[in-house]
């Protein structure tokens, strides 16, 4: 019964001896992840434009706009309110800021002032960040006015130290009740959806995608062995069909595990994702995903008649599962996309990984996902075993 393991070991050796396969399954995912990290976030600097309609036109409004312009990576474009509304209507702008009439006067007199934010939909990623930055700038700006006003009041009203204390107390209470400048949502045109951080899903997404690619593409090895007579040679040894089948399954699992473990360990080491507990749980999850992928590969290997058929089937299966499984965009709660995503391994795998990597969940919380992945592994194994023909009659 050691023969299936020897067969799997052989495939692992072949995999490790094949520079192309190694590059594809380990270097390429790292490269892709680094690229996507560059595009979606990470170390790159932020660049955006704050779309502002200044209805006040006063001193304070002008100064505030200058301050926003001073923020690195942030530009200001000025609009009339009608223009801004028009741009929002056309989705040319997703987030706009309106400085209302009376802004300067309010600040000077110490009554609360508000900048209104107009959003299209969720306001876009950049818009949300810009709004947060504008809020920060406005807070700092308002505190200056407040301080100036408070100092003036203190100097004119306070005559004794106790007086000063009580004046400060009153001012602080006021400030707490009403922040001097608030950035308030004016109109949100569509109900805002909670947006997930793409990076949380990206890492497991890419790992699962390349696992699927390399494991399902290895379905060819069986067909290749049929073509180049090594299968025939194996059949003249004491290897049985069952052992051959088990060996090929184990080989797929081993390849997938090696690849995933290398990527996971790298990710944990470089990105300092989470603790060793999360790494261990990710490894267990990887085993289940690799088993499911390997079983799918065996189905492809038994159904396909030529190398080309096997390759195209593998590419199709992987692309379908990657695209609809939530690798590059989040899966909606309902509708056709949600339905399609159910027929992917990626959806379940990514969901489970995401919780574990964020350390908000454990393997125990992913029993549903693991059960689905396990069920795929078992049912594909049964299907493949029923279809598995070692005879090279149809050579």
């Amino acid at each position, binding site marked *: 019964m050691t023969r299936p393991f020897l067969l799997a070991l052989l495939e692992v050796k072949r995999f490790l001896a094949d520079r192309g396969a190694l590059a594809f399954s380990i270097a390429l995912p790292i490269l892709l992840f680094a690229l996507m990290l560059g595009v979606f976030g990470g170390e790159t600097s932020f660049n955006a434009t704050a779309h502002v309609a200044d209805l006040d036109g006063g001193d304070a409004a002008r100064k505030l706009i200058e301050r926003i312009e001073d923020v690195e990576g942030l530009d200001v474009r000025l609009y009339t309110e009608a223009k801004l509304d028009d741009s929002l209507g056309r989705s040319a702008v997703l987030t706009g800021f309106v400085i209302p009439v009376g802004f300067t006067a309010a600040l000077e007199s110490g009554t609360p002032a508000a900048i209104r934010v107009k959003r299209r939909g969720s306001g876009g990623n950049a818009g949300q960040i810009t709004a947060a930055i504008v809020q920060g700038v406005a807070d700092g700006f308002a505190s200056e006015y407040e301080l100036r006003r408070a100092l003036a009041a203190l100097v004119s009203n306070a005559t004794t130290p106790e007086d000063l204390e009580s004046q400060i107390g009153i001012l602080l209470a006021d400030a707490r009740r009403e922040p001097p400048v608030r950035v308030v949502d004016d109109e949100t045109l569509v109900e805002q959806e909670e947006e997930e951080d793409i990076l949380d899903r990206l890492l497991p997404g890419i790992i699962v995608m390349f696992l699927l690619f390399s494991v399902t593409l290895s379905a060819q090895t069986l067909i290749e062995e049929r073509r180049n007579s090594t299968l025939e*040679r194996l059949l003249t040894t*004491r290897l049985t069909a069952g052992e051959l089948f088990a060996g090929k399954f184990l080989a797929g699992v081993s390849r997938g595990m090696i690849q995933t473990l290398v990527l996971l360990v790298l990710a944990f080491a470089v990105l300092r994702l989470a603790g060793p507990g999360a790494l261990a749980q990710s490894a267990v999850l990887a085993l289940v995903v690799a088993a499911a992928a390997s079983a799918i590969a065996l189905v492809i290997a038994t159904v396909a008649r030529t190398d080309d058929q096997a390759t195209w089937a593998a590419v199709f299966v992987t692309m379908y599962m990657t695209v609809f499984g939530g690798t590059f965009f989040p899966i909606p709660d309902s509708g056709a996309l949600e339905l399609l995503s159910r027929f992917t391994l990626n959806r379940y795998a990514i969901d489970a990984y995401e919780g574990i990597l964020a350390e908000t969940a454990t393997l125990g919380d992913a029993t549903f996902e693991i059960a689905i992945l396990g069920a795929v592994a078992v049912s594909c194994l049964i299907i493949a075993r029923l279809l598995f023909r070692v005879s090279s009659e149809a050579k």
Partner: protein
Amino acid sequence: MEDFLVASDLTKSFDGTQVVASASFTVRSQEIFGLLGPNGAGKTTTIRMLSTVLDPDEGDIRIGGHSVAGESDAVRRLIGVCPQELALYPELSATDNLVFFGRMAGLPGGEAKARAAEILERVGLTDRAKDAVRKYSGGMKRRVNIAIALMSKPRLLFLDEPTVGIDPQSRNHIFDTVLALRDEGMSVLYTTHYMEEADRLCDRIGIMDAGHVIALGTPVELKTRIGNPDTTTLEEVFLSLTGRSLRD
């Protein structure tokens, strides 16, 4: 001498076309039996049936007293097969290839390694044993192909055109090895398109054409059929028996 392999009335069709038609012959213990025939005669198909890979439509095969149909596992312990195509893993070294197939044939790890080293020495590949087979010359690859077949310590060795496309040095090395193996007690079923090769190596020869075994005998017996055995070549016998028309 006793018959080690007995093939009786082997018949095989692919998609309704008969490829092997009631072929009967024997391979005796410790003899080199040459199976000759034009392209498409059915030699490889016959070997695949003899080596348990393909089930015959009709007929019976016994090897070492075991039925190929009923006792394939027992038969597999007795045979070694060197397929017509190179059947090896080019990314791996010769040693890895040999050890792997040795273990598949049931040898324990240590024994497989020792035997691999011994066989590689025998086929003159010790120096390059650790290199990936992909980097070998054509002749070296052919020698690895044969070496793998020897790993199972076979009593009967099938060599399907083992000398295709190699230089006279490698070819002669292979001849010497095959003759030595026979002298050590092995039976060999050998196919080739080189008639002088068959003449030199084979104790007995069977000529196949269009699936039929049309002649059986020692090289001298076959030559005597058409003339003086001292002046007639095996090639002349072959052409006179199988005709001069081209085959698919």
